[in-house]
Protein backbone atom coordinates (compact mmCIF):
# COMPACT_ATOMS: atom_id res chain seq x y z
CA UNK A 1 0.00 0.00 0.00
CA UNK A 2 2.91 2.34 0.69
CA UNK A 3 3.57 2.89 -3.02
CA UNK A 4 0.24 4.68 -3.28
CA UNK A 5 1.61 7.47 -1.05
CA UNK A 6 4.61 9.68 -0.68
CA UNK A 7 5.77 9.13 2.91
CA UNK A 8 7.25 11.78 5.18
CA UNK A 9 7.83 12.13 8.88
CA UNK A 10 8.59 15.12 11.04
CA UNK A 11 8.92 16.54 14.53
CA UNK A 12 5.47 17.77 15.55
CA UNK A 13 6.43 20.22 18.29
CA UNK A 14 7.64 22.92 15.89
CA UNK A 15 4.94 22.22 13.29
CA UNK A 16 2.04 22.50 15.73
CA UNK A 17 3.10 25.81 17.26
CA UNK A 18 5.39 27.57 14.78
CA UNK A 19 4.37 30.62 12.77
CA UNK A 20 6.54 29.97 9.73
CA UNK A 21 4.85 29.04 6.42
CA UNK A 22 5.51 25.31 6.72
CA UNK A 23 4.12 25.15 10.27
CA UNK A 24 1.02 27.20 9.40
CA UNK A 25 0.38 24.96 6.38
CA UNK A 26 0.57 21.92 8.68
CA UNK A 27 -1.68 23.47 11.33
CA UNK A 28 -4.38 24.29 8.77
CA UNK A 29 -4.39 20.66 7.64
CA UNK A 30 -4.03 19.00 11.06
CA UNK A 31 -6.84 21.04 12.64
CA UNK A 32 -9.22 18.78 10.69
CA UNK A 33 -7.63 15.66 12.17
CA UNK A 34 -8.15 13.40 15.17
CA UNK A 35 -7.16 16.00 17.78
CA UNK A 36 -9.18 18.82 16.26
CA UNK A 37 -8.29 22.48 16.33
CA UNK A 38 -7.27 22.84 19.96
CA UNK A 39 -3.83 23.84 21.14
CA UNK A 40 -2.85 20.35 22.27
CA UNK A 41 -0.61 17.82 20.61
CA UNK A 42 -1.11 16.94 16.95
CA UNK A 43 0.92 13.73 17.11
CA UNK A 44 -0.23 11.00 14.80
CA UNK A 45 -0.39 9.81 11.23
CA UNK A 46 -2.14 11.88 8.57
CA UNK A 47 -3.08 11.49 4.95
CA UNK A 48 -3.42 14.75 3.07
CA UNK A 49 -3.38 16.01 -0.47
CA UNK A 50 -0.37 18.05 -1.64
CA UNK A 51 -2.77 21.01 -1.64
CA UNK A 52 -3.00 20.67 2.14
CA UNK A 53 -6.52 19.22 1.98
CA UNK A 54 -7.01 16.90 4.96
CA UNK A 55 -8.03 13.35 3.99
CA UNK A 56 -7.73 11.11 7.08
CA UNK A 57 -5.79 10.72 10.31
CA UNK A 58 -5.33 8.63 13.45
CA UNK A 59 -2.98 8.23 16.36
CA UNK A 60 -2.80 4.56 17.20
CA UNK A 61 -0.31 1.78 17.81
CA UNK A 62 -2.68 -0.63 16.07
CA UNK A 63 -1.48 -1.55 12.60
CA UNK A 64 -5.03 -2.46 11.61
CA UNK A 65 -6.38 0.93 12.65
CA UNK A 66 -3.63 2.69 10.73
CA UNK A 67 -4.24 0.53 7.66
CA UNK A 68 -7.95 1.35 7.83
CA UNK A 69 -7.11 5.04 8.16
CA UNK A 70 -4.82 4.85 5.11
CA UNK A 71 -7.60 3.20 3.13
CA UNK A 72 -9.99 5.97 4.16
CA UNK A 73 -7.38 8.47 3.03
CA UNK A 74 -7.01 6.82 -0.36
CA UNK A 75 -10.78 6.74 -0.81
CA UNK A 76 -11.00 10.43 0.05
CA UNK A 77 -8.16 11.17 -2.37
CA UNK A 78 -10.00 9.32 -5.15
CA UNK A 79 -13.09 11.45 -4.50
CA UNK A 80 -11.16 14.72 -4.33
CA UNK A 81 -11.68 16.89 -7.44
CA UNK A 82 -8.54 17.43 -9.49
CA UNK A 83 -8.51 21.16 -8.80
CA UNK A 84 -8.32 20.52 -5.03
CA UNK A 85 -5.51 18.00 -5.14
CA UNK A 86 -2.36 19.96 -5.84
CA UNK A 87 -0.27 22.69 -4.31
CA UNK A 88 -1.34 26.08 -5.59
CA UNK A 89 1.37 28.22 -7.13
CA UNK A 90 1.03 30.86 -4.45
CA UNK A 91 1.02 28.41 -1.53
CA UNK A 92 3.77 29.09 0.98
CA UNK A 93 5.37 26.06 2.58
CA UNK A 94 9.01 27.04 2.48
CA UNK A 95 10.68 25.89 5.69
CA UNK A 96 12.33 28.60 7.75
CA UNK A 97 14.54 28.08 10.75
CA UNK A 98 14.65 24.31 10.52
CA UNK A 99 17.70 22.95 12.31
CA UNK A 100 18.53 20.79 9.29
CA UNK A 101 19.61 24.03 7.59
CA UNK A 102 22.48 24.26 10.11
CA UNK A 103 23.83 20.75 9.47
CA UNK A 104 27.60 21.24 9.51
CA UNK A 105 28.61 20.00 6.08
CA UNK A 106 32.28 19.04 6.11
CA UNK A 107 32.03 18.32 9.81
CA UNK A 108 31.46 15.07 11.67
CA UNK A 109 27.92 13.70 11.79
CA UNK A 110 27.49 10.71 14.07
CA UNK A 111 24.57 8.33 14.43
CA UNK A 112 24.04 7.02 17.92
CA UNK A 113 22.04 4.06 19.16
CA UNK A 114 21.05 3.48 22.76
CA UNK A 115 19.82 0.19 24.20
CA UNK A 116 19.26 -1.44 27.54
CA UNK A 117 21.78 -4.13 28.21
CA UNK A 118 20.40 -7.57 29.03
CA UNK A 119 20.60 -8.74 32.60
CA UNK A 120 22.44 -12.02 32.96
CA UNK A 121 23.05 -12.48 29.27
CA UNK A 122 25.09 -10.99 26.49
CA UNK A 123 24.99 -10.44 22.77
CA UNK A 124 25.18 -14.17 22.18
CA UNK A 125 21.78 -15.78 22.34
CA UNK A 126 19.96 -12.74 23.57
CA UNK A 127 17.72 -10.57 21.46
CA UNK A 128 18.35 -6.89 21.67
CA UNK A 129 15.63 -4.83 23.28
CA UNK A 130 14.15 -1.73 21.71
CA UNK A 131 16.46 1.11 20.89
CA UNK A 132 16.46 4.81 20.30
CA UNK A 133 18.66 6.72 17.94
CA UNK A 134 19.97 10.23 17.59
CA UNK A 135 22.62 12.20 15.78
CA UNK A 136 25.55 14.17 17.13
CA UNK A 137 26.84 17.11 15.11
CA UNK A 138 30.33 18.62 15.09
CA UNK A 139 31.49 21.35 12.72
CA UNK A 140 34.66 20.93 10.65
CA UNK A 141 36.63 22.98 13.18
CA UNK A 142 35.22 20.93 16.05
CA UNK A 143 36.01 17.67 14.25
CA UNK A 144 39.68 18.71 14.02
CA UNK A 145 39.60 19.37 17.75
CA UNK A 146 38.99 15.65 18.34
CA UNK A 147 42.58 15.13 17.15
CA UNK A 148 46.02 15.73 18.65
CA UNK A 149 47.78 18.79 17.26
CA UNK A 150 50.46 16.60 15.74
CA UNK A 151 49.40 13.48 13.92
CA UNK A 152 52.23 11.23 15.06
CA UNK A 153 52.15 7.78 16.61
CA UNK A 154 51.76 7.97 20.37
CA UNK A 155 50.30 11.47 20.43
CA UNK A 156 47.56 11.72 23.03
CA UNK A 157 44.80 14.23 23.19
CA UNK A 158 42.10 14.96 25.70
CA UNK A 159 38.82 16.00 24.08
CA UNK A 160 38.31 19.72 24.81
CA UNK A 161 35.82 20.43 27.54
CA UNK A 162 33.17 22.09 25.35
CA UNK A 163 33.02 19.07 23.05
CA UNK A 164 33.17 16.64 25.97
CA UNK A 165 30.25 18.44 27.58
CA UNK A 166 28.26 18.22 24.35
CA UNK A 167 28.71 14.44 24.37
CA UNK A 168 28.02 14.00 28.07
CA UNK A 169 25.17 16.50 28.48
CA UNK A 170 23.22 15.81 25.29
CA UNK A 171 24.21 12.36 24.02
CA UNK A 172 24.94 10.11 27.00
CA UNK A 173 21.40 10.41 28.29
CA UNK A 174 18.84 7.70 29.03
CA UNK A 175 16.58 7.98 25.98
CA UNK A 176 16.32 4.23 25.30
CA UNK A 177 12.56 4.12 25.89
CA UNK A 178 11.72 7.72 25.01
CA UNK A 179 12.96 11.26 24.91
CA UNK A 180 14.54 12.47 28.10
CA UNK A 181 16.15 15.60 29.51
CA UNK A 182 19.73 16.71 29.01
CA UNK A 183 22.26 17.28 31.78
CA UNK A 184 23.79 20.65 32.46
CA UNK A 185 27.58 21.12 32.28
CA UNK A 186 27.85 21.35 36.07
CA UNK A 187 26.18 17.92 36.39
CA UNK A 188 28.68 15.98 34.27
CA UNK A 189 32.28 14.97 34.56
CA UNK A 190 34.58 12.67 32.72
CA UNK A 191 37.14 12.51 29.99
CA UNK A 192 37.63 11.18 26.50
CA UNK A 193 41.22 10.60 25.44
CA UNK A 194 42.31 9.86 21.89
CA UNK A 195 45.72 8.33 21.11
CA UNK A 196 47.25 7.84 17.70
CA UNK A 197 48.24 4.21 17.22
CA UNK A 198 49.29 4.20 13.59
CA UNK A 199 50.13 6.67 10.83
CA UNK A 200 50.37 5.65 7.21
CA UNK A 201 50.53 8.38 4.60
CA UNK A 202 47.67 10.77 5.18
CA UNK A 203 45.79 8.33 7.32
CA UNK A 204 46.10 7.90 11.05
CA UNK A 205 44.36 5.43 13.32
CA UNK A 206 43.31 6.33 16.83
CA UNK A 207 42.10 4.50 19.88
CA UNK A 208 39.63 6.19 22.17
CA UNK A 209 39.17 5.64 25.89
CA UNK A 210 37.14 7.47 28.43
CA UNK A 211 34.64 7.54 31.20
CA UNK A 212 31.76 9.71 32.23
CA UNK A 213 29.47 10.41 35.12
CA UNK A 214 26.37 12.54 35.26
CA UNK A 215 24.16 13.08 38.23
CA UNK A 216 21.26 15.48 38.64
CA UNK A 217 19.28 16.22 41.78
CA UNK A 218 16.41 16.97 39.45
CA UNK A 219 16.65 20.72 39.40
CA UNK A 220 16.79 22.46 36.03
CA UNK A 221 20.02 24.33 35.32
CA UNK A 222 19.77 24.94 31.58
CA UNK A 223 17.81 28.16 31.49
CA UNK A 224 14.60 28.99 29.70
CA UNK A 225 14.01 26.77 26.69
CA UNK A 226 11.55 24.21 25.35
CA UNK A 227 13.10 21.41 27.43
CA UNK A 228 12.53 23.00 30.82
CA UNK A 229 10.01 20.82 32.70
CA UNK A 230 6.80 22.66 33.54
CA UNK A 231 6.75 20.94 36.91
CA UNK A 232 8.40 18.17 38.87
CA UNK A 233 11.88 17.19 39.82
CA UNK A 234 13.67 14.41 37.96
CA UNK A 235 16.69 13.15 39.88
CA UNK A 236 18.71 10.80 37.72
CA UNK A 237 22.19 9.71 36.81
CA UNK A 238 24.32 7.80 34.38
CA UNK A 239 27.92 6.66 34.51
CA UNK A 240 29.83 4.98 31.75
CA UNK A 241 33.06 3.71 30.38
CA UNK A 242 33.98 4.55 26.82
CA UNK A 243 36.10 2.79 24.22
CA UNK A 244 36.43 3.22 20.52
CA UNK A 245 38.57 3.55 17.47
CA UNK A 246 38.73 5.92 14.56
CA UNK A 247 40.63 6.56 11.39
CA UNK A 248 41.29 10.10 10.18
CA UNK A 249 42.12 10.94 6.57
CA UNK A 250 44.21 14.08 6.66
CA UNK A 251 44.11 14.57 2.88
CA UNK A 252 40.31 14.61 2.93
CA UNK A 253 40.13 16.40 6.29
CA UNK A 254 37.56 13.95 7.56
CA UNK A 255 37.15 10.82 9.60
CA UNK A 256 36.99 7.75 7.38
CA UNK A 257 35.82 5.65 10.31
CA UNK A 258 34.67 6.40 13.83
CA UNK A 259 33.22 3.92 16.31
CA UNK A 260 32.53 4.56 19.95
CA UNK A 261 31.13 2.05 22.45
CA UNK A 262 29.77 3.37 25.72
CA UNK A 263 28.62 0.98 28.47
CA UNK A 264 27.42 1.78 31.93
CA UNK A 265 24.38 2.18 34.10
CA UNK A 266 21.56 4.65 34.51
CA UNK A 267 19.07 5.38 37.26
CA UNK A 268 16.08 7.65 37.74
CA UNK A 269 13.54 8.91 35.26
CA UNK A 270 12.18 11.92 33.46
CA UNK A 271 8.58 12.58 32.48
CA UNK A 272 8.65 10.92 29.07
CA UNK A 273 11.56 8.47 29.07
CA UNK A 274 9.56 5.42 30.08
CA UNK A 275 11.37 4.75 33.37
CA UNK A 276 8.76 5.93 35.86
CA UNK A 277 7.96 2.40 36.97
CA UNK A 278 11.59 1.29 36.97
CA UNK A 279 12.91 2.18 40.38
CA UNK A 280 16.26 0.45 40.23
CA UNK A 281 19.42 1.21 38.30
CA UNK A 282 20.08 -0.83 35.18
CA UNK A 283 22.73 -1.34 32.53
CA UNK A 284 22.72 0.75 29.37
CA UNK A 285 24.91 1.03 26.28
CA UNK A 286 25.43 3.38 23.36
CA UNK A 287 27.13 2.96 20.02
CA UNK A 288 28.23 5.89 17.86
CA UNK A 289 29.36 5.71 14.24
CA UNK A 290 29.59 7.97 11.20
CA UNK A 291 26.14 8.74 9.79
CA UNK A 292 25.26 7.95 6.21
CA UNK A 293 23.77 10.16 3.55
CA UNK A 294 20.17 8.96 3.51
CA UNK A 295 17.39 11.50 4.12
CA UNK A 296 16.95 10.10 7.64
CA UNK A 297 20.59 10.89 8.37
CA UNK A 298 19.81 14.61 8.01
CA UNK A 299 17.58 14.62 11.09
CA UNK A 300 19.16 16.96 13.66
CA UNK A 301 20.19 15.98 17.19
CA UNK A 302 17.33 15.99 19.70
CA UNK A 303 19.00 18.74 21.76
CA UNK A 304 20.27 20.80 18.82
CA UNK A 305 18.38 23.87 20.05
CA UNK A 306 20.55 23.99 23.18
CA UNK A 307 23.88 22.99 21.61
CA UNK A 308 24.85 26.66 21.87
CA UNK A 309 27.57 26.25 19.24
CA UNK A 310 28.69 29.39 17.43
CA UNK A 311 28.40 27.77 14.00
CA UNK A 312 24.65 27.31 14.41
CA UNK A 313 24.19 31.00 13.71
CA UNK A 314 21.45 31.60 16.24
Amino acid sequence: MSDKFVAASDEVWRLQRGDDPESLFFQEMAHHGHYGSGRGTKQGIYVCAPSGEFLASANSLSAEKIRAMMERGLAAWSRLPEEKRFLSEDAAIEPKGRWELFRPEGGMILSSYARDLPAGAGPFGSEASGYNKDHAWFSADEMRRWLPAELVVGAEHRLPVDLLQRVLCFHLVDSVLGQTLPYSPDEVQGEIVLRITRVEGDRCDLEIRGRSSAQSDGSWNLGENDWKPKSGLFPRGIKTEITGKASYDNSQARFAAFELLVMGQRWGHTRFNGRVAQKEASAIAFFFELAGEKPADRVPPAFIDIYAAAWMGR
Partner: protein
Amino acid sequence: MLPYLRLLAAGLSCCMLSASHARAQLGFDESIRHELQPGDLEIWRDWLRPSAEDAAWMEAIPWLPSFAEGIEKANEAAKPLLLWVMNGHPLGCT
Protein backbone atom coordinates in the same frame (compact mmCIF):
# COMPACT_ATOMS: atom_id res chain seq x y z
CA MET B 1 35.85 -12.01 31.21
CA LEU B 2 33.46 -11.74 28.29
CA PRO B 3 30.82 -9.05 28.75
CA TYR B 4 27.95 -11.48 29.00
CA LEU B 5 29.73 -13.37 31.73
CA ARG B 6 30.40 -10.13 33.52
CA LEU B 7 26.75 -9.32 33.28
CA LEU B 8 25.80 -12.81 34.41
CA ALA B 9 28.01 -12.29 37.41
CA ALA B 10 26.38 -8.97 37.98
CA GLY B 11 22.97 -10.63 37.71
CA LEU B 12 23.89 -13.22 40.34
CA SER B 13 25.17 -10.49 42.57
CA CYS B 14 21.88 -8.71 42.07
CA CYS B 15 19.99 -11.83 43.23
CA MET B 16 22.13 -12.07 46.32
CA LEU B 17 21.50 -8.45 47.00
CA SER B 18 17.78 -8.78 46.45
CA ALA B 19 17.01 -7.34 49.84
CA SER B 20 18.65 -4.08 48.94
CA HIS B 21 16.95 -4.13 45.53
CA ALA B 22 13.60 -4.59 47.18
CA ARG B 23 14.12 -1.23 48.76
CA ALA B 24 14.69 0.12 45.23
CA GLN B 25 16.55 3.17 46.34
CA LEU B 26 17.42 5.71 43.70
CA GLY B 27 21.05 5.94 42.77
CA PHE B 28 23.80 3.95 41.16
CA ASP B 29 24.07 0.23 41.86
CA GLU B 30 27.62 -0.84 42.60
CA SER B 31 26.79 -4.42 41.61
CA ILE B 32 26.26 -3.36 38.01
CA ARG B 33 29.76 -3.44 36.62
CA HIS B 34 30.72 -1.80 33.40
CA GLU B 35 34.48 -2.11 33.07
CA LEU B 36 35.25 -2.38 29.40
CA GLN B 37 37.58 -5.09 28.15
CA PRO B 38 39.61 -5.36 24.94
CA GLY B 39 37.38 -6.66 22.19
CA ASP B 40 34.15 -5.30 23.66
CA LEU B 41 33.73 -2.91 20.72
CA GLU B 42 33.69 -5.75 18.22
CA ILE B 43 31.55 -7.95 20.47
CA TRP B 44 28.82 -5.40 21.10
CA ARG B 45 28.82 -3.29 17.94
CA ASP B 46 26.43 -5.38 15.87
CA TRP B 47 24.20 -6.06 18.85
CA LEU B 48 23.77 -2.35 19.48
CA ARG B 49 23.24 -1.31 15.86
CA PRO B 50 19.66 -1.63 14.62
CA SER B 51 19.12 -5.09 13.14
CA ALA B 52 17.64 -5.54 9.68
CA GLU B 53 14.34 -6.21 11.41
CA ASP B 54 14.68 -3.06 13.54
CA ALA B 55 15.36 -0.92 10.48
CA ALA B 56 12.89 -2.57 8.10
CA TRP B 57 10.30 0.17 8.48
CA MET B 58 12.87 2.77 7.46
CA GLU B 59 14.45 0.72 4.69
CA ALA B 60 11.25 -0.49 3.05
CA ILE B 61 9.61 2.93 2.89
CA PRO B 62 11.52 5.94 1.53
CA TRP B 63 10.55 8.34 4.31
CA LEU B 64 11.32 11.98 3.65
CA PRO B 65 12.49 13.82 6.76
CA SER B 66 10.22 16.89 6.67
CA PHE B 67 6.62 17.87 6.03
CA ALA B 68 7.54 20.45 3.36
CA GLU B 69 9.68 17.96 1.43
CA GLY B 70 6.82 15.49 1.60
CA ILE B 71 4.30 17.99 0.24
CA GLU B 72 6.58 18.95 -2.64
CA LYS B 73 7.39 15.36 -3.53
CA ALA B 74 3.73 14.31 -3.29
CA ASN B 75 2.82 17.21 -5.58
CA GLU B 76 5.38 16.05 -8.16
CA ALA B 77 4.29 12.43 -7.86
CA ALA B 78 0.56 13.28 -7.94
CA LYS B 79 0.01 11.14 -4.84
CA PRO B 80 -1.39 11.82 -1.39
CA LEU B 81 1.05 12.39 1.43
CA LEU B 82 1.30 9.94 4.33
CA LEU B 83 2.69 12.00 7.19
CA TRP B 84 3.89 10.65 10.53
CA VAL B 85 4.54 13.30 13.17
CA MET B 86 5.66 12.78 16.77
CA ASN B 87 7.19 14.61 19.68
CA GLY B 88 10.75 13.82 18.71
CA HIS B 89 11.41 13.09 15.08
CA PRO B 90 10.30 9.52 14.18
CA LEU B 91 13.48 9.11 12.14
CA GLY B 92 15.59 10.36 15.04
CA CYS B 93 15.23 10.46 18.80
CA THR B 94 11.59 10.14 19.71
